[in-house]
Structures are given as structure tokens and as C-alpha cells.
């Protein structure tokens, strides 16, 4: 898994790629909570276009990130979900809990 950050005023886009599983979800969790809790960025966008696989530990990290952002009065926004990520979101019935957009343009327009 790889994470690249694109920061700008009041927001950051995290481009995630590869597989998010038991072995590397702690790295994603650390990066996500670092932006939300440590840097207190109000809007954190996750670009999931190149995430081939995500398991329940990855989803757990996303839920933790969502809770942390709400606690801070911020927003965690997901976009460009790959079929694999979308399926897992639906299986866990979280697609209506998260803010999810089809692409970056739509996500950034919010």
C-alpha cells in the first residue's frame, strides 16, 4: 500500500493505492488520524481509485477516522471507490454513513 498526501489550504487529499489489509491498515490509520487529530485538518479527502483490496481492518480504520473527524467538527470524504471497496462498504452498510462521491471533481466541489 502507498499513501501520497496533497495538502492545500484547509484540506488534504490522501491518494491511497494497493491493498489495505491486516498488515498495512495500521499505516493508513496512522496517516489518517495524523491529518485529522494531530494536524486538525478540517477536510480530509481519501482518493480510493487505486485501492485494489480493503479488508475489515481497513474499514475499521476508516470508521475510526470518521469518528475522529466528527469529534473535531471536520469532514472525512471518500471518492472514486473501486468495485472492491464499494462492495465492502455495502456489505458493512457503511455507504450511507460516509460521504462518498464518484470522482475528485464532485468531492472537491462539496
Amino acid at each position, binding site marked *: 500500500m502507498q499513501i501520497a498526501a496533497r495538502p492545500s489550504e484547509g484540506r488534504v487529499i490522501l491518494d491511497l493505492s494497493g*491493498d489495505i*489489509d491486516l498488515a498495512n491498515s495500521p499505516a493508513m490509520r496512522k496517516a489518517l488520524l495524523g491529518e485529522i487529530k494531530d494536524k486538525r485538518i478540517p477536510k480530509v479527502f481519501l482518493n480510493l481509485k487505486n485501492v485494489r*483490496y480493503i*479488508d*475489515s*481492518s481497513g474499514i475499521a480504520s476508516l*470508521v475510526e477516522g470518521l469518528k475522529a473527524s466528527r469529534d473535531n467538527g471536520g469532514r472525512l470524504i471518500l471518492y472514486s471507490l473501486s*468495485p472492491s471497496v464499494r*462492495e465492502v462498504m455495502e456489505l*458493512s452498510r457503511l455507504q450511507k454513513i460516509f460521504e462518498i462521491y464518484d470522482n475528485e471533481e464532485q468531492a472537491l466541489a462539496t
Partner: protein
Amino acid sequence: MVRATLQCATEVAHFHEAESRAIVRSVDEALANVIRHAYKGQNGLPIEVTCRRLFSDPQKTNLSGLEIVLSDSGAPADPKKLCGRPLDEIRPGGLGLHFIKQSMDVVEFRRENGKNLLRMVKYLVPSKPEEKKSEKENRPCRLPLDLPKEG
């Protein structure tokens, strides 16, 4: 490596892409549960994964599909914890077993000869086409009556 190998097995068995992903995800979640719970987070301990293609017979008493059995020598699983958690509460954790139950047609656990055995089956055609999604979500895990016996 397990994910890639299973991916190939599902393709050989002619599963569609989404079903293939569901099988791979289920086995991956099951492996993660073994590492987390049976082996208490210790890496490098043995988990045996057996994959067998199932073929239907002319009478259709058996269906085509894929059977995967995981075997580990870790701590016995607590049957009470083998049915996942309700999805109503939004909190991290506890989703792996839910994914498995939702994705596979058969999920059976038993303890045999000091080993945990998890058998999962995915059929190429739905085993119960009339079954609604909500019924599947509420379906209990199948636990053999001799579960507590130690070998």
C-alpha cells in the same frame, strides 16, 4: 500470496469477478481472524489452506463450486463469538465474520484433534435462490454439536 492463489482458483472454477472477490475476501478475513484470535497476533505460525473444486452430478444433488478449509493449531474459538456483530452500531471492528457469512453459502466451524477447522463453500449457482438478503444476514452459523470436544 494466498489472495493471488485463490484468485486463480476462482477463475479456474468460472466464478464471476464479484463472486471471485467475495471468496478471496472471505478467506482473507478468516486468515486474519486466525492470526488475531487463535494465534493472539503472533505471525509465522502455520495455517493450512485447502481448496477443492466441487463438481455437480447429473441428479444435481451436489452443486459445482469451491470448498476452502482452513486449519490452525491455535487457541480454541469461542462458539459464542462466531456469529459476528450487529451492523446497527457504527464502530470499528467485528466485521470480518459478517463479511464471510454474507459472501459464502456454507460456513462451518469445528474443533478436531486439537485444531480449529473452518470450512467455507461457495456454489457457482445460488444454493437457495429464493433466500432474501435479509434472511441470509440473520442466518446463524452452523456449529456441529461436538464443538467443545478436544482431540
